[in-house]
């Protein structure tokens, strides 16, 4: 972690579009020097958003960019903060399209400092920044933003935006996660949304189905925000929520506002949620991408949109 990033941690948030996240902070003066325009957020921190150093590279505004969404398993009684829900969102402003690519937590990759191991280890080793870097390396993209949230933060966030409406694709009945849903449109509160996101025992494909459900929930939340926050009042309300409950690193509320506007211009019918196929191997108990998955990664990496898949 760089000195700047270390010092800069302030607060804010942006849960626009795929939005959920935040960062840590530590110095008002340095924050101002770094250009962050929101001095201090108030309230309990629910999530963190970090603008990664690679995002500062000059780019054309029409160029695609990529966001890592990270759900950690941090909760009372569990330490380590592994990145157990991993998603990359590609946003293509010029095409008005976005794609959510879901990555299973058991994917085997090279994690700096940990060797070849499950991809969720990266968060334990180096926090959201390293997790985002490793995700980007797997798929072949440079990730600009990392948004991370733990169990409690996720619940608060969903409740904070008034819940999320999900078209549940199949029945859930899993005592372990607490997921109990019938197929069909369901309005979920934070507890229910977390259970829906954690359930893997109801499906033959286990973690792969869980990962896909997480992407489906993100997609649903984006659609819902498109309805509820697509006005100046709705956007200011959302930004204030973020400002109170997100920890921001190297990014300000103003930046998030403009990112959110981009998100609201996405063609909802062309926001896709995909979970590439996996095979076994790579590391103990782990998964590896199939040839089809690698082909999908390449299709996604060039412009954030899938043309061939």
């Amino acid at each position, binding site marked *: 972690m760089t000195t700047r990033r270390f010092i800069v941690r302030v607060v804010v948030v942006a849960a626009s579009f795929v939005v959920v996240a935040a960062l840590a902070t530590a110095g008002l003066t340095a924050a101002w020097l770094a250009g962050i325009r929101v001095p201090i957020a108030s309230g309990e921190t629910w999530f963190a958003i970090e603008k990664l150093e690679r995002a500062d590279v000059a780019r054309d505004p029409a160029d695609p960019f990529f966001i890592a969404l990270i759900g950690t398993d941090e909760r009372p009684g569990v330490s380590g903060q592994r990145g157990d829900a991993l998603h990359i969102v590609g946003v293509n402003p010029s095409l008005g399209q976005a794609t959510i690519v879901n990555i299973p937590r058991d994917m085997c990759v090279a994690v700096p400092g940990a060797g070849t191991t499950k991809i969720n280890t990266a968060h334990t080793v180096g926090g959201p920044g390293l997790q985002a870097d490793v995700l980007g390396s797997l798929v072949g993209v440079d990730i600009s933003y990392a948004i991370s949230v733990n169990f409690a933060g996720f619940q608060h966030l969903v409740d904070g935006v008034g819940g999320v409406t999900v078209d549940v694709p199949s029945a859930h009945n899993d005592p372990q996660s607490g997921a109990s849903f019938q197929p069909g449109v369901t309005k979920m509160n934070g507890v229910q949304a977390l259970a829906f996101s954690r359930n893997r025992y109801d499906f033959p494909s286990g973690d792969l189905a869980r990962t896909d459900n997480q992407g489906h929930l993100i997609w649903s939340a984006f659609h819902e925000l498109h309805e509820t926050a697509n006005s100046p009042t709705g956007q200011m309300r959302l930004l204030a929520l973020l400002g109170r409950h997100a920890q921001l690193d190297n990014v300000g509320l*103003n930046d998030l506002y403009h990112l959110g506007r981009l998100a609201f211009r996405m063609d909802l019918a062309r926001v896709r949620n995909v979970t590439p196929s996996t095979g076994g191997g790579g590391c103990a108990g782990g998964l590896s991408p199939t040839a089809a998955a690698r082909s999908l990664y390449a299709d996604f990496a060039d412009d954030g949109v899938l043309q061939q898949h």
Partner: protein
Amino acid sequence: MASAVVAVAALGACSGDGDSEAEDPTTTTAAVEGVDVALEPGAVTVFGVADGAVLAESAARAALVGAERYVQSAMVSPLARGDVAERFTGLFAPALLPLVQSGGRDHAVLTDAGIPEATATPSVTTSPVAIDALVATDGTPLMVVTAFRARTNAETDEGPVSVGRTVELTFERTDGDWLVTAYKISTTRRGIDDSPTSTTSVDSEVDAA
């Protein structure tokens, strides 16, 4: 969440609680060259990162004046004197100028450049300007969004023309000035080029990614 909705006849420091929408009557302003359009403030909604958020009067007024400048330059001047008063420098953020100035991608939607000049005094009808704002913990206004409708009607040598716009302008403090950093504008024209009605829209902002 700290929010305030206040319908104001004259701008002052704005604060309060609630989510009600203000009434939205229209007002009419006679527009002649040399006389600025005067927009009326409508509901002012303030959201704060902390409780008790208050929007400084200066910020609200700067946004309102900016909105007036936009209407005057983009809508009134073309009718009154045949061209757009290029007062966009100092109104739009530098990063947006290539889009909004003559030849820019959004120029034709943002302005009425090229429509026939009015043969009599045109009129401008506007709605009150709804103002939404976000205020930081220390009271610093972070952004102010103005939303309103405006319509011009005029007689020209080519017949009556009417242009209506739905306008959202986002103002942020940039190098000491409140400048437009994002806009969302929809324009409907009637009586121009023999086309009964045409509607075009733009939605642009400075790049943050």
